[in-house]
């Protein structure tokens, strides 16, 4: 699409674009330079501001905190996928007994902020170690969003698919398991991964209830007077770690997507279509 919004630039347009590029580029560079300069002036880039990272204890704690983040993510992701699958099935059920409660539960947990849920489990219900409150909060919240993703994915398949399956005599569970799910999973994958990225980032909220994850560690390290309160260096390191983890997840999604497409006998879906599918269930984060 973006390629047809403008012509291949001619000589004049090229000059104009170059001017824009230089102007825009220098504005961005100036902004970044200003930020870096001010932080440097505040002493945040001095060599001794980075001293903290050389200590073995600090490194071990960072790794431990990263481990806690990943632990909450792994448990939350598995449970959320499970929760999503169960409640998507519930919402697609023909029986109102299953459909109505599932709908209410999914809608409720989609509407309540994760922070409030985590507080509820930790301070309200006293669930024990903060880990449990974090994981259950992540599960319910992201699970409900995933339930919607699954449901929308199955509904997005052409009706002919299920009609044909019923016509050859399959039962509803067979139609779902053998025909609809395998096809829709492919389309849902990008949306699922985006939601998992959200889940990974949301583990950071554990710091509010003393879960010892990466952000809490950053807060602790950034406030240590002996190291000169190296807030910016710590933020840079932790930020890079998060971005790297999320990009790795996204890369995994791309990889799986590519593998799926290769397996297809008749590729009907162009990458652009896949992009649109993501769009209809934009992750909630």
């Amino acid at each position, binding site marked *: 699409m973006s390629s047809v919004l403008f012509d291949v630039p001619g000589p004049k347009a090229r000059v104009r674009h170059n001017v824009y590029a230089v102007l825009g580029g220098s504005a961005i560079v100036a902004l970044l330079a200003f930020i870096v300069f001010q932080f440097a002036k505040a002493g945040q880039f001095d060599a001794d501001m980075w001293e903290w990272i050389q*200590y073995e204890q600090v490194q071990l704690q960072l790794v431990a905190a990263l481990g806690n983040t990943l632990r909450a993510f792994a448990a939350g992701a598995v449970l959320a996928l499970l929760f999503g699958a169960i409640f998507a099935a519930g919402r697609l059920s023909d029986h109102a007994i299953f459909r109505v409660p599932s709908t209410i539960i999914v809608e409720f947990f989609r509407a309540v902020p994760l922070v409030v849920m985590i507080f509820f489990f930790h301070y309200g219900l*006293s669930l024990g170690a903060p880990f449990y409150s974090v994981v259950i909060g992540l599960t319910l919240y992201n699970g409900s969003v995933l339930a919607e993703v699954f449901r929308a994915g199955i509904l997005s398949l052409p009706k002919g698919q299920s009609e044909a399956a019923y016509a050859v005599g399959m039962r509803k569970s067979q139609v779902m398991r053998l025909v609809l799910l395998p096809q829709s999973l492919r389309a849902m994958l990008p949306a699922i991964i985006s939601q998992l990225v959200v889940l990974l980032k949301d583990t950071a909220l554990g710091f509010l*209830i003393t879960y010892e994850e990466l952000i809490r560690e950053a807060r602790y390290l950034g406030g240590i007077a002996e190291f000169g309160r190296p807030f910016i260096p710590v933020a840079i390191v932790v930020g890079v770690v998060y971005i790297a983890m999320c990009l790795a997840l996204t890369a995994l999604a791309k990889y799986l997507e590519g593998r799926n497409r290769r397996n297809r006998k008749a590729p009907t879906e162009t990458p652009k279509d896949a992009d649109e599918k993501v769009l209809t269930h934009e992750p909630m984060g």
Partner: protein
Amino acid sequence: MKIRTLVVGLMVSGLALTACGKEGSPTGSGSGDGGDGGAQLPTYEVAQDVSVEGSPTFAKMQQSGGPIVGVKEDQPGLGYKDPTTGEYSGFDIEIARLVSAKLGFDPEKMQYKAVPSAGREQAIVNGDVHYYVGTYTINDKRKEQISFAGPYFVAGQGLLVAKDNNDIQGKEDLQGKKVCSVSGSTPIQRVREENLTQDSNIVELQTYSQCVTQLTQGQVDAVTTDDAILKGYAAQEPDKLKVVGDTFSDEPYGIGLPKNDKALRDKVNDILQEAMDDGTWQKIYDATLGKSGASAEMPTIDRY
């Protein structure tokens, strides 16, 4: 293929990172660890064959092979974790170690869990920690959820300001000034109840070190909490911070315990009483908070 390379790369760099760590602490460390000529920390004899009849918490400690103790990690002189060695030090920490030893558990095997003010009651209620020693003021509202042994120390609310700030001399000068303290702590509640400053000027963060950071950046005008805590920060950065004015409250510090565990509470009270009587308390004080030259009185234990 790409992912495998990525994973391997990450692992290699992770290994490289942990392999080059250095130990020890940076120069000018402010965490008093008793080694610099002053009073020496006492050692605690581990009691043998202790049993506390009818205490579920004590049974849990035995199960886990030692107590899990809730502490503060960012209060120099009271409860402070040396970031370079991971070792805890301070008055509260010593009290926690003393209690552990007298309960029959080697203090070296005690597990620390850093819990900020707002999470303290919940950590005890949830069984996340077995007991909590960390500038924990005894009051009736908290007694609805948990119980307290002690007090083992009495502090008073004070004010910490920037070194070059001469406007604030006491709590009367706080009107119109930004005052920072920690969510769920008694000092912030007092500021609100006594209307020491406007509601919009009250800044609530999660830890005192965050408040101190904001103070050094000029984002707030004063940090208020117990003087013992504030003196620790002022001692750490004497060229930037100072404690001003008289204290304006009594903050009796207790050891937080699960609510319905009277057996353990009585036992801990006995331990504290004994430490005050035989001079251990004084030794601990002299080797930690007392280093600043200030003296302190032993409180009377309040048994209930």
